[in-house]
C-alpha cells in the first residue's frame, strides 16, 4: 500500500509499482507484436483465424495467464488487480487474444470452486495458469452477472446436450467450462473442446471471435452441482464484468490519446485543429470521464481481487459507468479524425467495434444499473 496511513487498511485506488512494471512489460510486448496494422491484417485473413496464438503464447510466458491463480494451484499468486492492468493494456492494443474467455471467465469460474474442488478442476486450472491449455466459459457473452443460471444445456448422466450462441474465445479453447442443468439442478462441467461442434459467428467486434457451441451428448466431467455451481458462474461473471471494464478503460485511453495526438498535428484553416475550443472542451470532458473511469475500474479490480462482499456492486458500477465512457471515447475518435476515421484503413473502427461490443458483453449498462438498484435498495416500482 502506498503513502502514509494511520495503520488502517484502506482501499487502494492507485497503481502499485509492481503493477506499473507489469504494465510496462505488457505494453512493450504489444507495441512489438500487436501493432494495429498487424491486427487489421489479421482480422482480414480469409481463414477467419483471428486469434493471435503466437502473441498469446508470449503473454502466457510473461505469466499473464496465471496472475490471479495461487502459487499452490499453479499460478503466479498475484491478484486480479494485476490482471486488470493487463486487461487495460490489451484493450489499449485491441489485442486479438483469448484473454477474456480463458484467463478471466473460465479461470474465475474454476477458481471460485475453491481449493477442495474436484481434481479435474485443479488440473485444468493449473493448465490454464501455465498457458498450456485455453478454455472458454460456455455462456452467451451478453450474459449479465444477475442473470438466472443458464438452462440452454441439459446434463444427463455424464453427457451434455444443448446449444449456446455467442460464446467468446470458444474457437481457440482446448477445454470448455459448461454450466448445465440436470436432474440434480444447476451444475458446472468440463467438456473437451473436440467433443463439441463449434461454429464461428460473424462478430461485430472484429478482434473478438465468437462461436456457437453445440453439444450432442458430449462426454463431460462434473465439477460442481447446486449452489456451488451457481456461485461459481456468478462469480466468474462478476469478475468478468470488473476485468472487462479495465479493458474498456484501455480502449478509451487509446481513443483519447490517439485523437489528441492527431489534432495536435492536423491543420485546418491555418491552425492545428486541436486549437479549436469546441473540440478542446469535448476532449477535456472526455479526459474527465476517463479519469473517473480509472477510479471506478481500480475500485472494481480491488473488490474482485479481495473477494469483497462489495464486488458485485463494484463490478456493476464499473460496467454501468465505463461502458459509456469507452463508447463515447471511440465515437469521438472517429468523429474528430474526420473522414479518415470512418475508413477501414484507420484503426479507429477496431476500437469503436470493441467498445460498443464490450458495452453489450456481460450485460448492458441499463441492466447493471438495475443490479445497483437492487444492491443499494433503490427499487424500481412502487
Amino acid at each position, binding site marked *: 500500500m502506498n503513502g502514509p496511513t494511520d495503520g488502517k487498511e484502506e482501499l487502494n485506488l492507485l497503481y502499485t509499482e509492481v503493477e506499473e512494471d507489469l504494465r510496462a512489460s505488457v505494453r512493450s510486448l504489444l507495441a512489438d507484436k500487436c501493432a494495429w496494422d498487424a491486427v487489421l491484417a489479421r482480422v482480414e485473413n480469409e481463414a477467419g483465424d483471428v486469434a493471435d496464438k503466437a502473441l498469446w503464447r508470449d503473454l502466457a510466458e510473461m505469466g499473464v495467464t496465471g496472475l490471479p491463480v495461487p502459487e499452490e494451484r499453479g499460478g503466479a499468486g498475484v491478484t486480479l488487480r494485476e490482471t486488470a492492468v493487463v486487461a487495460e493494456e490489451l484493450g489499449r492494443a485491441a489485442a486479438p487474444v483469448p484473454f477474456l474467455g480463458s484467463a478471466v471467465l473460465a479461470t474465475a469460474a474454476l477458481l471460485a470452486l475453491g481449493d477442495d474442488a474436484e481434481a479435474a478442476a485443479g488440473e485444468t486450472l493449473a493448465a490454464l495458469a501455465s498457458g498450456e491449455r485455453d478454455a472458454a466459459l460456455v455462456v452467451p457473452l451478453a450474459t449479465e452477472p444477475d442473470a438466472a443460471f443458464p438452462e440452454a444445456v441439459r446434463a444427463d448422466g455424464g453427457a451434455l446436450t444443448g446449444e449456446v450462441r455467442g460464446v467468446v474465445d470458444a474457437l481457440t479453447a482446448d477445454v470448455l467450462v459448461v454450466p448445465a442443468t440436470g436432474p440434480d439442478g444447476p451444475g458446472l462441467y468440463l467438456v473437451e473442446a473436440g467433443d463439441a461442434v463449434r461454429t464461428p459467428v460473424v462478430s461485430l467486434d472484429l478482434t473478438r471471435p465468437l462461436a456457437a457451441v453445440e453439444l450432442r451428448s458430449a462426454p463431460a466431467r462434473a465439477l460442481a452441482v447446486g449452489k456451488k455451481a451457481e456461485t461459481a458462474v456468478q462469480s466468474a461473471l462478476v469478475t468478468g464484468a470488473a476485468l472487462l471494464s479495465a479493458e474498456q478503460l484501455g480502449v478509451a485511453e487509446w481513443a483519447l490519446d490517439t485523437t489528441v495526438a492527431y489534432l495536435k498535428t492536423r491543420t485546418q484553416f491555418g491552425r492545428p485543429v486541436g486549437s479549436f475550443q469546441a473540440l478542446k472542451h469535448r476532449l477535456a470532458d472526455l479526459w474527465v470521464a476517463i479519469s473517473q473511469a480509472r477510479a471506478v475500474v481500480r475500485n472494481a479490480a480491488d473488490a474482485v481481487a479481495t473477494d469483497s462482499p462489495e464486488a458485485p456492486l463494484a463490478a456493476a458500477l464499473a460496467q454501468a459507468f465505463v461502458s459509456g465512457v469507452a463508447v463515447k471515447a471511440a465515437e469521438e475518435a472517429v468523429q474528430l479524425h474526420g473522414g479518415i476515421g470512418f*475508413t477501414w484503413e484507420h484503426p479507429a473502427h477496431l476500437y469503436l467495434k470493441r467498445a460498443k461490443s464490450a458495452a453489450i458483453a456481460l450485460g448492458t449498462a441499463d441492466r447493471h444499473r438495475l443490479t445497483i438498484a437492487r444492491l443499494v435498495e433503490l427499487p424500481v416500482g412502487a
Partner: protein
Amino acid sequence: MTTAPAGGRLDAAALRARVADFVAAHDPATTDQSEFLAARFDAGLAWVHFPEGAGGLGAPRALQVVVDKEFARLGAPVPAGRERLVIGLGMAAPTILAFGTPEQRERFLKPLYTGEEVWCQLFSEPGAGSDLAALGTRAVRDGDAWVVNGQKVWTSGAHAARWGILIARTDPDVPKHRGITYFVCDMSDPGVDVRPLRQMTGEAEFNEVYLTDVRIPDAHRLGEVGDGWRVAQTTLMNERVSIGGHAEPREGGLIGVVADIWRDRPQARTPGMHDALLRLWVEAEAARLTKERLRQQLAIGQPGPEGSAAKLSFAELNQRISGLELELLGGEGLTYDDWTFRRPEGADFRSRVAGFHYLRSKGNSIEGGTSEILRNIIAERVLGLPGEVRVDKDVAWKDLPK
C-alpha cells in the same frame, strides 16, 4: 381532355394543366422511360423554375412540387433508381444553370436529367477536410486546356460517373479562397483513376480519385478563372437544401425499426431501455415535425437555415438510435451480417443489421459537412456570433501550414 392555357400566368393550375396535356400526349404506361423524361425536359417540366430551353419554364421554384405531385397522380411518378443521379440533379444542374455558358447548358443538362449521364463530385481532398478551400489539386493552363493533377476523396458514384464537378487550384500565390477554379471533368479521361475507398462498415460506397495529367478543355470551365470558390458555394448550398416534397410518416426512419424491435421482443425490455427508447422516439418525432415545418417553409419560398439544423440532428439521432438498437438486441447485437469488401447496390438500411446501422451512421456527421462545421455555420450565419480569429485569410495558399 384538359387544355393548357396558351401563355398566361404560370400558376399551379396552369402547370397542372400542362402536366395533364403532357401525360395525355406521352402515355407513361407505354412510353419508354428515357424517352418520356427527354420529352418532359423539352416540355419545360423537368425543373419548372429553370428557364425555357433548359428543362424549365421560368416558373416559381415552389411550383415544382405541384408538378411532381401531378405527374405522380397521373401515373408517372419519379422513376426508381434516381438516387444515383442525386449529384447531377441536386448539385451539378443548379450550378451549370447559374454559371454555365449556353453551350454548356445545351450539352450537359438534358442527359443529366434523363439519367443517361451520371455525375459525381470531385471536391474533398485528404489534406483539406473541412477546410475545403485549402485544396491542393492543381490545374495548370496549357493552350486551350488545363492539365490537372491531384487526389480527391469521398467521391460517391465516381466509378459509374460520366462527368465530375471539380474544383482545383489554378493560382497558389493568392489566398486560398481566391485561387480556385471550377471545372467539369470527363471521368473517362485516361488520367482519371478511380479506386474504391473501404469504410468501417466493410463496404466501399465511396472512392478515391487520382488525377494524373488529366486534360480538361477550357470550354469545360464553369465560371471565371479564380472564381471557383464562389461557384462551389452554389453547389454546396443546393446540397444542404435537399428536402423532399412529401411529408415523412411517423416512425418512418430508423426509430421505426427500433420501435418494432421493442414491440416484437418483450424479453428485451428493461425500464432503462424503455425510457431511452422513448427519449429517442420523442426526439425523432420532433425532428420529423421540424423537417415537415421546413418543407412547408420551402413550399412558400422561405427556405430557412433549418436545413443545416436538420442534417445535424439527423446525424446525431441516427447515431444514438442505432446505438440503442444494438444494446436492445443484446447478444444479437454482438454479431454482424457481412464484412466482405464490396460495393453496395442500393442504400436500404432496413436490409442490413443493427451493427451496419450503427457503423454507417458514424459517417452521417462527417459526410457533406461535418457537424462541427454545421454548428459554426449556425452560430455565425444564423445567430450572428463573431467568427473565429482567422489566421489564413490573407496568406497565399502556398505559404499556409499543410
